[in-house]
C-alpha cells in the first residue's frame, strides 16, 4: 500500500474535533447517549467562542466525570444540588455562561426541589438533562422516569405504579413555571436528531446570555448497559418505548 500524507488546509478540512473536548478517554459505555451530548455541548461552546467564559456544573451519576471531558472550568455538585450551585455561580459571575448537566435521578428525584426553584427563580442558566429512565452509575436501579413495566435492579418484576409510583415528565412541570423561557425535549438517536439537539443547546446558551431565564433541554437517551441491550437494540427500544412516553419537541419557547 502506498504511503501518502494528507495535508490539512483550510480548503480540505471538513471536520475536526473541537478543542473544548479533552484527550481523556470517556468512561461511558459504547452506545450511551452521554458521549454524543458532551460532544455537542463542547462544539457549541467552541463555536460561540466561549471556552474562557463557560462554567459547568456536573452531577452525581454517570456524568459525574463530565469535568474530565470538557476543557472548561467545572464544579462537581452534590447529588441533585447542581441547580443551587449554578445559581450562585451565575449570580456572582453574570458575564459567565453557566450550565448544569444532570441525569434523571439527580435532577428529577433527589434534586427535584433545586430543579423546580432554579426554574421558578428564572436564573440565567442552561440545564442539560439526560433522561435514560434508569440509574446508570449505581448499576441500573429504578429512576423517577423509569417506564411502567420496565425492569430495573430495584423493580426486577417491572415498574408497578401500585408499588413504585408513576414515571413523570419533569420537563412539562418546569415548562409551567414563569422563570423558564425555553423547554424542549430532544434525542440523539439519528443524525437528524443530533443536528436538532445541537441547535437546542445553542439556543439554550444564547438565552442564558440574553438574560431570558432558565432554558431546560432534555435529551431522551439510551442506557444499553442498564437496559441490558446491545447499542442498536437499545436505540430501537428507546424509539419504540421511551420517545412515545417522552415525546420530542418544544414544550415552551418564548
Amino acid at each position: 500500500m502506498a504511503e501518502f500524507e494528507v495535508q490539512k488546509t483550510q480548503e480540505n478540512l471538513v471536520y475536526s474535533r473541537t478543542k473544548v473536548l479533552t484527550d481523556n478517554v470517556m468512561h461511558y459505555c459504547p452506545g450511551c447517549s452521554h458521549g454524543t451530548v458532551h460532544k455537542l455541548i463542547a462544539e457549541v461552546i467552541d463555536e460561540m467562542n466561549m471556552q474562557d467564559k463557560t462554567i459547568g456544573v456536573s452531577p452525581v451519576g454517570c456524568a459525574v466525570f463530565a469535568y474530565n471531558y470538557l476543557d472548561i472550568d467545572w464544579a462537581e455538585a452534590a447529588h441533585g444540588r447542581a441547580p443551587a450551585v449554578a445559581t450562585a455561580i451565575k449570580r456572582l459571575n453574570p458575564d459567565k455562561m453557566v450550565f448544569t448537566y444532570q441525569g434523571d435521578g439527580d435532577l428529577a428525584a433527589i434534586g427535584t426541589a433545586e430543579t423546580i426553584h432554579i426554574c421558578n427563580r428564572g436564573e440565567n442558566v442552561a440545564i442539560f438533562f439526560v433522561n435514560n429512565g434508569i440509574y446508570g452509575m449505581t448499576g441500573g436501579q429504578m429512576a423517577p422516569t423509569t417506564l411502567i413495566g420496565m425492569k430495573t435492579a430495584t423493580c426486577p418484576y417491572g415498574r408497578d405504579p401500585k408499588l413504585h409510583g408513576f414515571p413523570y415528565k419533569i420537563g412539562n412541570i418546569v415548562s409551567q413555571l414563569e422563570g423558564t423561557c425555553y423547554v424542549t425535549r430532544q434525542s440523539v438517536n439519528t443524525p437528524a436528531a443530533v443536528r436538532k439537539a445541537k441547535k437546542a443547546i445553542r439556543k439554550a446558551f444564547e438565552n442564558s446570555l440574553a438574560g431570558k431565564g432558565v432554558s431546560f433541554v432534555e435529551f431522551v437517551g439510551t442506557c444499553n448497559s442498564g437496559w441490558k441491550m446491545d447499542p442498536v437494540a437499545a436505540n430501537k427500544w428507546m424509539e419504540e418505548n421511551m420517545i412515545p412516553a417522552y415525546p420530542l419537541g418544544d414544550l415552551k419557547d418564548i
Partner: protein
Amino acid sequence: MKEVKLMKGNEVLAEAAIRCGADAYFGYPITPQSEVMETLMEKKPWETTGMVVLQAESELASINMVYGGACCGKKVLTSSSSPGISLMCEGLTYLAGSELPCVIINVSRGGPGLGTIQPSQGDYFQATKGGGHGDYRLIVLAPNSVQEMHDFVFDAFDLAFKYRNPVMVLSDGVIGQMMEKVVLAEQRPRWTEQEIIEKCGDWALTGKTPDRKHNIITSLELDPYAFEKFNQKLVEKYNKVRENEVRYEEFMCDDADYVIVAFGSSARIGMKTMEMAREEGIKVGLLRPITLFPFPEKPIAALAERVKGFLSVELNTGQMVEDIKLAVNGKTPVEFFGRAGGAVFSPEEVYDALKEKLIK
C-alpha cells in the same frame, strides 16, 4: 472615625458581612437568627457594595449556593440555627472535601429534633467533630459578645481563605438576640476579579483561559491510594491550624485552685460565678475557649498540672467536657455542669455546682 452603635447580635452579623466585603449571603429563615437575612434585605447591599443576597428554598439549597460561590473564589456566607445546620451538613462535608473557603454561622438553639427556639450549646459536637460524613474539620469560632459577632465574621473569612477551609461561627440564641455596644469596622472593598485571580487563580473557577489548565472543584477520587493521600493532606492542614490558630482567654487563672471552662454565653455567666467565688475568698479562674476547633488543649494541660479541678459549664448535657478530659488526661478532676433544652443556668446555680462537685 470610629462608628459605635447599640445593636442586636444578629443584626451585627449582617452589618459585618457587608463591611468585610462579602460577595454573597445565601440563607433560609429560621428562629432565632432570621434577623440576619432580614437586615441584609433591608440594607440592600447589592446597591452599594454589589453583594448578592438570596433567600433559598431550603438550607440544602443555601449551603450548595455557598458551595457554588466559594468555587469561584468569592467570599460567601450563610447563617442558620441548629435544625438548619443539620440540613447543611451534606454541604459542609463537600465544602471541606473540596477545600473551599466560606463562613457558616450557627446561632444555635435547643435540640434534638425540632427542639426549641431558646438558646443552647448542644451543637458543640456537630460543629467540632463533624456533622457530615468523612474525616474533616471545620475551624470553629465561638463569640461571647455582640462585638465578637462582628469581629469574628472578619476573622472567619481570613481563616477560611488562609487555609481553604470552611469556618463556622458557633453562636447561640442569647448572643444573637441581645443588644450591646459594638464598634463597627470601616467598609472593606470586595475583591476585584483580578484580585481573585491573583489570590485563588490556581483553583477557583474564573474561566479557563489559554494560559492555564481547566480548574475543577470536586471531592471525588476513585483511587483509594490517591484519596488516602488527600486525606493525609487534610490532616496536615488541620495540624497547622492546631499549631497556629488556637485562641482562648484566661481570667484569674494564675493563682486559681479551680477553673471554670466555658465558651460563648456560658462564659459570661461563668465570669459572674467566678466573681462571686472570689468575693468569698475561693480562688476560681475561668478559661474561655474562643476557637473550639482548634481546642485550647495546651493551656488546659498546663493548668492541669497545678489546679485542683476543672468545671466544664455548658448549655447542653456535656459535650466540651470530653475535650477537656482529653487535654487533662487524668491529672486532675474534671466535672461537668450544664442545662439543656433551651434552659439557661444562673451564676448561682453554677456556683452551687462548683461547690458541690469540686470544692466540697
